[in-house]
């Protein structure tokens, strides 16, 4: 996959990696959608007390085409799951997913219910899980910073296409 | 010897004229109406450029304001309000097409012959040096051509009311 190992540490690749990862991490625009109570906490993360915008991530894009980050905030029901997957598919690469709250991670209090998906890992690749029921806005900020850490370890040499 | 800047001006005139002609052919030949409208924009905009090169800078700007800014937008609106025309089969019978092309070719040949063979007065062989047009046009519109000007405004008013009456949904 990708480049041979001896080229990985090439100056050109590593410095381009640094720039690209810095830019991607510093401007994570989320899709504007929320499913349940976690969404309220997600909105609170954008307000003055917690201020998501300090990390450049307050630009909630209404269209998934322009967003980089999908924060799945709230219980995903089996009826909603195709819609969530569809929004994920509509996003442009590179795209990241944060699963926010117990319900999205594992079904939460509704686990085993006939209508609830036991965790969104079943149908979208999740980058960061933010536990809590619901997690506080600080926890979402923590999740975004974790995601930035993860982005920093990426390399363009690994990209498949 | 040709002065280089003037050669540049002449060259841009012919370039824009060619673009305008290509756009006009596109208007006629494009299969989708929407593409025709975009070609029309191309034609009108490059004609505005040729007007500027021909010393009519005010007219060039007016061309962009009225034609590109208003009439094309109106046409695009018309296209979007009549969505089913996208699938309209465009070939309208071989007979009518050949007749149309024949008429157009005849008009073109006749006018070209007239233009090429006419004895134009000597005084018209060189361009009039550039002069400020805005003021001259304004003066003309309010003195010599005041009557046509007023009639044009009345025409616009009538057209506006007529268009509203025709296009309005019956209540």
């Amino acid at each position, binding site marked *: 996959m990708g480049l041979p190992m001896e080229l990985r540490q090439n100056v050109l690749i590593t410095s381009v990696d640094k720039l690209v990862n810095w830019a991607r991490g510093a401007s994570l625009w989320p899709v504007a959608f929320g499913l349940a109570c976690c969404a309220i906490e997600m909105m609170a993360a954008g307000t003055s007390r917690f201020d998501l915008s300090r990390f450049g991530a307050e630009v909630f894009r209404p269209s998934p085409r322009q967003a980089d980050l999908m924060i799945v905030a709230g219980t995903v029901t089996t009826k909603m799951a195709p819609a969530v997957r569809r929004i994920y598919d509509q996003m442009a690469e590179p795209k990241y997913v944060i699963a926010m709250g117990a319900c999205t991670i594992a079904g939460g209090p509704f686990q085993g219910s006939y209508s609830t998906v036991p965790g969104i890992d079943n149908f979208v690749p999740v980058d960061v899980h933010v536990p809590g029921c619901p997690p506080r806005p600080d926890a979402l900020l923590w999740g975004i910073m974790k995601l930035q850490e993860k982005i920093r370890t990426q390399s363009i040499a690994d990209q498949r296409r | 010897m040709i002065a280089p800047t*003037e050669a540049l*001006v002449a060259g841009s*005139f*012919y370039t824009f004229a060619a673009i305008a*002609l290509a756009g006009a052919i596109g*208007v*006629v030949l494009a299969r989708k*109406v929407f593409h*025709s409208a975009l070609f*029309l924009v191309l*034609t*009108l905009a490059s*004609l505005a450029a*040729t*007007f500027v090169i*021909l*010393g*009519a800078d005010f*007219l060039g700007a007016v*061309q962009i304001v*009225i*034609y590109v800014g208003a*009439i094309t937008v*109106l*046409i695009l*609106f018309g296209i979007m309000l*009549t969505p*089913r*025309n996208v699938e*309209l089969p*465009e070939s*309208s019978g071989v007979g009518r097409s050949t007749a*149309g*092309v024949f008429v*157009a*070719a005849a*008009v073109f040949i006749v*006018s*070209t012959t007239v*233009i*090429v*063979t*006419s004895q*134009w007065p000597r005084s*018209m*062989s060189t*361009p*009039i040096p550039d002069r400020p*047009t805005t003021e*001259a046009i304004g*003066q*003309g519109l309010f003195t010599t051509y005041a009557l*046509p000007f007023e009639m*044009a405004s009345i*025409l616009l008013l009538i*057209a506006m009311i*007529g*268009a509203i009456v*025709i*296009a309005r949904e019956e209540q």
Partner: protein
Amino acid sequence: MPQELPPLYPISLQHGLLLGAALFSIGIAGALTRRNAITILMSIEVMLNGTIVTFVTFARYAPTADLAGQIFSIFIMTVAAAEAAVGLAIVIAVYRLRHTVSVDAVDTLQG
């Protein structure tokens, strides 16, 4: 005796007139061959623009005191705007009645 066309430089009266004539003819071809009413309207706009080009060229080369050619071009544009507005209104009214914009569908008056 036919006057010879001057070389491409400088832009001559004849070249401007030829551009106008070509645009006008292309417009005629479009107006006569297309069926879509909106395309026909656009072809008419191309024809009107051919006329404007002719007027502007004459204003450039005819030694008159005022800019009659350019002023007339402005009148042409006014008429073109009025024509486009009324024409599109008619097209939309026809579309509402017949659900098509083909000019062939609007031939009831032929009897």
